[in-house]
């Protein structure tokens, strides 16, 4: 791809840069400002340098939350990506059935996040919820409010239910971009279903999958509302992920300095992971072309 060099293209990009700078960079700078100050009152601020950062980096509770967060994000990526791509492969492609299944698949995406948590809160209850009752009837002593593992699994299942549609929609759309001629050629060559997927469909999907992985990673790494509504982070700390721990510091204890330092570290961790994913998937995508 040899695109012409044209620096005047900046004029076309300026509106986006302006609006994002307004809505993102100004708040970010405020947070940077908090992170190096001890704010005692509206007019009483002390510059404390990197103290907050050191405090945050040595916080054992934070390490626990970070570990839980990484395990959670990797787990849901490992489930949602194959499931979403698989679903996209088997969804009907034509006629009213394709329209209907697209609408049905997307429904969970359109539910406000606090309602998602509420649905599962009731759905999973052993006495009155369909899911909880069904599991108990199968002989599993399921109780997400008391058992840490059950709570964790419930959050994972909820997230899979909620977000797999996003991966599926993107992958479905990506698959539509594979020209029919490719399939015909593969048929003539006698390629197996797996070979078609591996050498024709997967390379075509690399672009959408990059976006899907990045979106899912970022959003799962900052997940807040759904587990908060479902379990409030409990039982114990078992479903307290980073965002929620951050909220307890910032809103609960109103420790703005450490919270700001924490969120900058948090931001850098996400940035680092995303950049690794992005570069890895991009270079693989280039090689596949």
């Amino acid at each position: 791809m040899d695109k012409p060099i044209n620096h005047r293209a900046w004029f076309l990009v300026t509106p986006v840069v302006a609006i994002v700078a307004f809505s993102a960079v100004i708040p970010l700078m405020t947070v940077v400002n908090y992170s190096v100050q001890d704010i005692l009152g509206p007019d009483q601020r002390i510059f404390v340098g990197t103290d907050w950062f050191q405090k945050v980096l040595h916080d054992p509770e934070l390490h626990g939350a970070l570990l839980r967060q990484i395990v959670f994000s990797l787990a849901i990526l490992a489930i949602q990506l194959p499931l979403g791509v698989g679903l996209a492969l088997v969804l009907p492609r034509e006629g009213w059935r394709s329209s209907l299944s697209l609408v049905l698949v997307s429904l969970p995406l359109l539910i406000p996040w606090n309602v998602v948590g509420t649905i599962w809160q009731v759905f999973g209850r052993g006495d009155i919820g369909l899911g909880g009752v069904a599991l108990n009837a199968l002989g599993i002593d399921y109780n997400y409010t008391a058992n840490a593992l059950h709570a964790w699994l419930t959050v994972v299942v909820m997230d899979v239910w909620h977000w797999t549609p996003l991966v599926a929609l993107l992958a479905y759309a990506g698959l539509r971009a594979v020209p029919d001629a490719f399939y015909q050629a593969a048929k003539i060559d006698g390629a197996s279903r797996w070979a078609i997927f591996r050498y024709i469909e997967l390379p075509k999907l690399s672009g959408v999958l990059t976006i899907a992985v990045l979106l899912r990673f970022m959003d799962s790494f900052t997940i807040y509302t759904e587990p908060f509504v479902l379990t409030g982070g409990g039982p114990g700390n078992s479903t307290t992920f980073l965002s929620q721990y951050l909220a307890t510091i910032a809103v609960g204890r109103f420790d703005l300095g450490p919270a700001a330092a924490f969120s900058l570290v948090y931001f850098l961790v996400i940035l680092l992971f995303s950049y690794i994913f992005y570069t890895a998937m991009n270079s693989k995508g280039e090689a596949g072309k």
Partner: protein
Amino acid sequence: MKGSRFLAPLYLFASFVPIYWLVCMSFKTNEEILGKFTFFPTSPTLDNYSTIFTDSSWSQSYLNSITYVTINTVLSVLVALPAAYAFSRYRFLGDKHLFFWLLTNRMSPPAVFLLPFFQLYSSIGLFDTPWAVALAHTLFTVPLAVWILEGFMSGIPREIDETAYLDGYSFARFFVRIFLPLVRSGVGVTAFFCFMFSWVELLLARTLTSVDAKPIAVTMTRTVSAAGMDWGVLAAAGVLTLIPGAIVIGFVRNYIAKGFALGRV
């Protein structure tokens, strides 16, 4: 692949079960929801819905949500269109970094950023207006819109641009008359994603509004009162929040099904 034809219906069924439960709850009385387990509402009632429809604060917040989501979607698509065109057609100073930087704005953890947002929008007098929420949501919708549109636009051969310029089209006229119709499907899909992410977001929307621009998802939290939760009304409100999204996806489903054939996304 004999089994595979059952996979899609199976998944759809499983994913529909929790939604069924929500719909089911919305037709039950609170006594029935909390009292015992029943598959179907034993005495279906519309009370929960009538509670919502007779109270103007519900319909008002429903309208508020639709207002800021619409502003956000229109704004995001409008600013993202030229930018995506620039990214897909030209190389320029810092283009790759800028492209990735856009997405990094989705990465900010919400909890701490709420206060700066509150201060920012209060200081410019937009607090408690739909504009505040719409602008705040551009934080994650604009980067996404640029990324998706860029994929679609890159799928359109550059010869089309060149031919149009040779024919004497100005940039603006070419963009509106020739290029936009070609990426129509991309615009539809982008609009859907902007709509979706803005519609379901709660934290920012709640922080930036108090009375006049209160979104529906926040009004829902009112159902938690001293007397316990009003599950039935909450469920009914949840069902109602599904409807606008279902309508929007009804509009763009054809674009998703067909239109992507052009783009790499």
